């Protein structure tokens, strides 16, 4: 048994079989402590979402496994709630009903109807959506939908909250607003969070540690950067903070120098191979 709260141990993931098999993840190891905010960053297609889905239990690892609070994860469950990129609210339910579906299912036996009702309202209050209880998802903005998605996930009182590019589809201002809100909520309830992101600023601002992934196939964890900035963090103050900028630079360097994404263009490939040939000739000569 692992002594860490959440342990991802030797996870490999292969999609397909035989000749078509592609190894997406290779030997991913990560230990996360209770109350930590972890960001996973990497170029698209590097298997970030696969890692998250394996932790969520939506995908199973080909090799290795995930242990949460002393128990192995092998199926999805309310102790690992997910906030999906495109909110995934059910459009035929109101805001209240969307959260109620999660709360009533998760706490059917442990809470009374009254307690559940209060808890739904409390969760929506936490993301400042109390004014739109009876609205349907189509009637509210993208940022509001994502707030409700976060409320639904939080309302299940998960051991670990999984955020799959939660702010990716939002405009920059709304995104900043929601990031602040997530920071506030995390400070309040000290939840353990794993967040997938493309956004360097978002990762540095929110995380305790940033997990940087190498490019796929056979992606794995390249580096882990610990963000030693005091919380609560303020995006305006941090803009001039040398430490913050150093962290930012380190992540950028990883993404754009060490793991520069090579676009798989056929012409680029050809010229690369020609260069390689001429190089090898030169070496031989």
């Amino acid at each position: 048994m692992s002594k860490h709260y959440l342990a991802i141990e030797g996870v490999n993931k292969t999609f397909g079989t035989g000749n078509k098999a592609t190894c997406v993840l290779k030997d991913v190891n990560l230990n996360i402590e209770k109350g930590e905010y972890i960001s996973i960053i990497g170029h698209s297609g590097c298997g970030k979402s696969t890692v998250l889905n394996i932790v969520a239990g939506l995908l199973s690892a080909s090799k290795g496994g995930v242990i949460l609070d002393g128990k192995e994860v092998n199926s999805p469950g309310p102790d690992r709630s997910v906030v999906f990129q495109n909110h995934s609210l059910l459009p035929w339910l109101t805001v209240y009903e969307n959260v109620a579906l999660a709360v009533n299912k998760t706490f059917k036996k442990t809470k009374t109807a009254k307690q559940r009702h209060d808890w739904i309202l409390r969760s929506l209050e936490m993301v400042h959506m109390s004014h739109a209880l009876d609205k349907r998802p189509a009637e509210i903005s993208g940022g509001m939908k994502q707030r409700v998605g976060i409320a639904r996930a939080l309302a299940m009182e998960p051991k670990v909250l999984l955020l799959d590019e939660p702010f990716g589809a939002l405009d920059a201002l709304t995104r900043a607003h929601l990031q602040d809100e997530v920071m506030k909520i995390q400070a309040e309830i000290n939840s353990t969070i794993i967040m997938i992101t493309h956004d360097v600023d978002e990762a540095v601002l929110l995380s305790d540690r940033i997990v940087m992934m190498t490019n796929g196939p056979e992606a794995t964890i390249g580096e882990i950067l610990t963000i030693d900035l005091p919380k609560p963090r303020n995006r305006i103050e941090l803009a001039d903070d040398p430490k913050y900028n150093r962290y930012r630079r380190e992540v950028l360097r990883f993404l754009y120098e060490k793991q520069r994404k090579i676009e798989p263009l056929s012409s680029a490939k050809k010229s690369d191979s020609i260069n390689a040939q001429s190089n090898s000739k030169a070496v031989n000569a």
Partner: protein
Amino acid sequence: MTASTQPNLRKLTPVVQPSVIVKIGKTMKPWGDSFIKNVLPALIVGAIFLLIWEWMTSSASATLPAPSKVISDTWELIVNPFYNHGGTDVGMGWQILASLERVAYGYTLAVIAGISLGVLVGQSTWAMRGLDPIFQILRTVPPLAWLPISLAAFQDSNPSAIFVIFITAIWPIIINTSVGIRNIPEDYRNVSRVLSLNGYEYFVKIMLPAAAPYIFTGLRIGIGLSWLAIVAAEMLIGGVGIGFFIWDAWNASMISDIVLALIYVGVVGFLLDRFIGFISTLVTRGTSAQ
């Protein structure tokens, strides 16, 4: 108290009345607009159609009755929709109700069986591979072609007619339901897996609402087809029903009766379609808004 309310009332009365008038005027105006935009064109075209019909059938050698003659011939039928002289000699209201009853039985069975089979085919790839080819072949069989075989099976005309309705309406319901279920976004499945919904909860809370717009498309096509089929089927099986009424009128050379019956068939078919459409908008309010 009274002293304070008295002046208020006096102040209010003259103000309230003009505003009420303005309000009525405002609500009346769009009504007039929509009448001009939506109803008037239909009235004008209908009137022109009737005039052309009247003009083309006005000569003595015309084989079909003019609209004026249709009305004078069938006036008794129009004003007495619910007379009952026994046998098949009953009012148009009874004839249509008899047909509607058959449609109600056949269609209800088709809805139950169609949605169940559609869910099965939509959910299970194996069931789809096995059943889909059969469905694709059987659905092209014309409704009336089923009548002889159902007469042979049931040995009775009424269940046979109901079976023809059933078998006509079921295909679009099956196919649309299964497409609806196949098109449920992966996200909704993931949500239900994260929430650990069980099979029944998934069916009621996610699958049915998510597939509802598709299911209702199938239901709407199904009701239209079953109304098409019943008229044809009743012509062959006899008994009380609008289809046999038309056939009977043809045998008795009462062409005006046929014209009247066709109008009734058209209006009832239209109302059935709108009825299912109305239920659909009630049920799928949220879903289709996405």
